[in-house]
């Protein structure tokens, strides 16, 4: 009997160390999955930097696109992107934050509210190119705005709206109920509670969400191609009703050309795009760390 137990113990011990070894191997493989993702990210960044660095110059900021790589620049694309961001922000921020406030603070618990919520959730999953088709059919054709900055900005605003609404709601939800109750007890209306208390406390988090939404918009290409933003613009856009191009479209255009010089230019454009995105994200992180109130 005792020999049998001892034997069993030995097999169990051997089995156990095998089982533990299996677990160790799995842990290492799983860790390598993450490392592989990070390695891919680094490879991408290094590849783009090596390709683009020789082409990075101040000329990119001052010259219009050209069929000669030495003279080609991003001037109209950068201005187009800047215009588009300002117009998109002007449209999307009030609507998105307003809708977020409504859904979180004012909305009654009923079917209409539920329907709106499902809508927002679903819109977040609609491919961006579908927004492009909406913009093409509705803003460019039906409203007759043409392939202008304002049509692009309206399309982009609808695209980032779900992001702003969702982050606004999360930010508002983080404000403790006691703040609202205190203000309500002193006789404030629900709007005064939202304006003077909830929005003040949640502003940093809302701002972070807005920056993230804008960084999504600045890199979007497909919907703007669909509404017909052009690839060759050789003048400075003067207002919302001008035709335009943006940074990612100019990059796409240069990638599509067969000459490798243009690929270098595209990589240089990507470096600028990534630098803009990086600074926006750094700003968002800084805001979150500095201003965010933890309850």
């Amino acid at each position: 009997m005792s020999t049998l137990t001892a034997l069993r113990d030995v097999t169990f011990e051997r089995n156990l160390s095998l089982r533990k070894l299996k677990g160790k191997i799995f842990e290492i493989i799983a860790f390598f999955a993450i490392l592989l993702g990070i390695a891919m990210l680094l490879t991408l960044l290094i590849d783009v930097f090596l390709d683009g660095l020789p082409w990075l110059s101040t000329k990119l900021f001052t010259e219009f696109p050209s069929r000669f790589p030495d003279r080609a620049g991003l001037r109209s694309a950068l201005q187009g992107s800047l215009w588009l961001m300002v117009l998109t922000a002007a449209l999307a921020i009030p609507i998105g934050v307003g809708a977020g406030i409504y859904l979180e603070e004012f909305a009654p618990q009923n079917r209409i509210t539920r329907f709106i919520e499902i809508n927002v959730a679903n819109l977040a999953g609609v491919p961006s190119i579908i927004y492009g088709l909406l913009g093409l059919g509705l803003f460019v054709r039906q409203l007759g705005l043409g392939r202008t900055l304002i049509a692009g900005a309206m399309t982009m605003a609808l695209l980032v709206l779900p992001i702003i609404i969702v982050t606004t709601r999360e930010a508002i939800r983080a404000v403790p109920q006691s703040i609202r109750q205190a203000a309500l007890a002193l006789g404030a209306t629900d709007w005064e509670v939202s304006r003077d208390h909830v929005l003040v406390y949640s502003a940093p988090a809302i701002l972070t969400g807005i920056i993230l939404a804008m960084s999504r918009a600045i890199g979007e290409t497909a919907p703007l191609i669909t509404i017909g933003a052009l690839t060759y613009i050789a003048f400075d856009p003067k207002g919302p009703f001008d035709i335009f191009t943006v940074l990612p479209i100019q990059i796409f255009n240069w990638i599509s050309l067969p000459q490798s010089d243009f690929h270098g230019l595209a990589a240089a454009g990507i470096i600028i795009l990534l630098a803009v995105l990086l600074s926006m994200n750094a700003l968002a992180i800084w805001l979150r760390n500095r201003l965010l109130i933890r309850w």
Partner: protein
Amino acid sequence: MGMGRNQTRPIPCVKEGKLQMATTIQSLTTQNHRKRDRERKIIRGLTFFFALVSVGTTAGIIYELLKETVLFFQEVSILEFFTDTRWTPLFASKRFGVLPLVNGTLLVAAGAMLVAVPLGLLAAIFLSEYASERMRKILKPILEILAGIPTVVYGYFALLFITPILRDLFPETQIFNAASASIAMGFMILPLMASVSEDALSAVPRSLREAAYAMGATKFETATQVVLPAALSGVAAAFILAVSRAIGETMIVAIAAGQQPKLTLNPLQSIETMTAYIVQVSLGDTPHQSIAYKTIFAVGMLLFGMTLIMNIISYFVTKRFREKYE
């Protein structure tokens, strides 16, 4: 009772006795209250209208897509659209079989899933079950950067970095091919797969893990035989969301996968996806009333329908999984 900024006006005329004063305050309060109530109602109405914009967007998408799709099907039979095996609307001899585009879309998406699902799932298990809090705080944001890089950059990377490597490995690889787009897209989707799965794994109650440990299971056995099955519906939701994202992804395939709609399962060949076709037509100068203009809406409608169904499925799967453990 005026609050804060509303109490700026001094109360007039107090010398005529207490009653007088009370009435004045009363009437002022009522006046003030009315003003504040009006403001409140206006804001409520306005923000309700803003919230309705999202409903309007959905309605607008469906209306615009349907309008042109209906016009399209007046010229092309639905049967041809779904059964013909050739897609040549831009050529002289026009054929309108959408299957090659669907084939291209699914081929690239399947390839992307081959990269994103195993890596994303492993990453999720590591982050949720193995990584220390500090490690997770460092690794997760770095991984998320992958999702924040614009897709046009992935397109560049696929065409000018991945494709040359593939051509060295497999000389028969075409310059534009499905595989390079799949690989780049897989890494783009990895963070989505990882973070949604991780949320599901982390939501599994601690008691389940402790029960497994008490039964003598190792950490690995607990993670793969207890935690993972318990979180399966959440992982399934992550998978469906990832597929939906892959199907709708545009710039990577427009740059790297080519413009040749064909029925093939060979990822080294040049293909065309639904999204890349829409880009191709949009880049050309397509007249408003032409059949080519209508095709992009018909293809868009199909794409919208496919992603919508997947989003609905993932919504219900997630809902079920939430009810289970909260």
